[in-house]
């Protein structure tokens, strides 16, 4: 049969010579290779004690952001829900009252904000769609759960800790976002 592409190679199989048929030299070669691996650097990371750093483009669990004064950024505009290809985000908007100005940055806020983590594909389109820098994907995994209901994260679970009252937790949740932003 004529070859179509001229790229095929004819495999030449010569019968093994005596040295090859003895197998011992190749066995010794193989054993030398495995032995040399004793002295190589170990690839293992002892997980709970040591943790692998996240990649700068890692997209983990969602976080609803606050500004420096601890006010929620989200205005419940619904752009993230529209952008979401998996339709994982639902929300209900509410108007800010007079006494709530220290809680919400804009006049409108999300009274209910839910993300179904089983539907979410962690594409990050919500983060790109958000005009208020209110939602971003952090450096944590979604933890396991016993029920499907448990994977529907409510607003309280998503909200970042208050920077004024719980400063350390806020920093942890914030992660390396600012650092990565600067490096960009």
């Amino acid at each position: 049969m004529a070859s179509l592409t001229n790229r095929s190679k004819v495999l030449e199989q010569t019968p093994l010579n005596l040295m090859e048929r003895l197998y011992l030299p190749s066995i010794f070669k193989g054993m030398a290779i495995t032995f040399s691996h004793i002295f190589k650097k170990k690839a293992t990371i002892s997980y709970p004690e040591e943790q692998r750093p996240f990649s700068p483009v890692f997209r983990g669990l969602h976080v609803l952001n606050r500004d420096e004064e601890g006010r929620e950024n989200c205005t419940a505009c619904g752009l993230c829900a529209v952008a979401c290809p998996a339709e994982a985000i639902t929300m209900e908007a509410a108007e800010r009252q007079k006494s709530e100005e220290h809680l919400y940055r804009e006049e409108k806020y999300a009274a209910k904000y839910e993300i179904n983590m089983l539907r979410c594909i962690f594409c990050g389109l919500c983060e790109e769609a958000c005009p208020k820098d209110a939602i971003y994907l952090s450096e944590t995994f979604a933890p396991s759960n016993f029920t499907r209901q448990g994977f529907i994260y409510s607003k309280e679970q998503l909200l970042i800790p208050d920077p004024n009252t719980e400063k350390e937790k806020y920093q942890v949740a914030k992660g390396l976002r600012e650092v990565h932003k600067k490096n960009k």
Partner: protein
Amino acid sequence: MTILQIDFFYFLEKLLLIGGVITFSLVIAMYTTYAERKVAAVLQDRLGPNRAGPFGLLQPLADGLKLFFKEEIIPLTSNKLLFVIGPALAMITAMLTSAVIPWGSTVNMFGRNVSLQIADVNIGILYVFGVVSLGVYGIMIGGWSSNNKFSLIAAVRGASQIISYELAMGLSLIALLMMTGSLSLKTIVEQQMSGGWGGFLGWNVLYQPLGFLIFLICVFAECNRTPFDLPEAENELNFGYHQEYSSMKLGFYLFAEYINMFISSAIVSTLFFGGYDIPFVNETTLAHTLGGNVVALLGVAALLAKIVFFLFFFMWVRWTIPRFRYDQLMDLGWKKLIPLALANMLITAIVILWLNK
């Protein structure tokens, strides 16, 4: 003091020695499982068990405890009696061989010369062969009584493999026996110790390299170790002949394999590597300066070092070489090793005759 015409202290001494050797081989087998995992890890750029205790040294204890507390399952359609006898036989035959291995020379204790060998029988090597040939029964009975197709196939494989390689093993040793002229393991060790360079030049491996190679390959096959672990080929037989076993009965099978490894290493070191001979050291002159007991214990340590090396070798090979196909295994055993061993025998005989002329 004699009971039934037997020296009571002699009896006690042997009992203690037997107990010591059994405990010792069990402990070694335990830590061989640990070493296997550690060596496997190290050869594959991993860390291996390191959680239980420092460096994971308590891992074998944890594993043993786990096996003890597992549920004991005896399949309903199995042959119950034989199902229980199987692992016991495997363990017994694994242990029996240690009786004729000289673990060291004599130690002087409480005015008695205690030989560090349980029984110096004049047919030592043949005894080893006898016990090894019985090792098949543990596998066969266990595999058959499980009433499982995979177990049965594994048992048949194991049995035919062990019988086939026993032949080559025996033939490779005949050449060695022609040189030593004795079947007693103690005599063989003492002959090697009398060689030059503190015994090193007397080591049989220098005179019987081909015999050693054949013997080593056959030992791998007899212990069901990779590349000859066809009775336990997971991807073909699920788990092998001990598939239906659980709890400590499974543990016995696994343990027996490691004890077999330990004993085989001991026999290889005894036959070919001088046993308890310390290389480059003249034991008799050292005994004058350090005392006989110290030298005897050093000899035991030397034997142990050799055994540990061979145990490492077993693992090293396991994590390097892939498994044989069954026809290749039979081909190697019957068509390669047996003719080679016969040729080795012939050459040795000719050389011995020529030297004696």
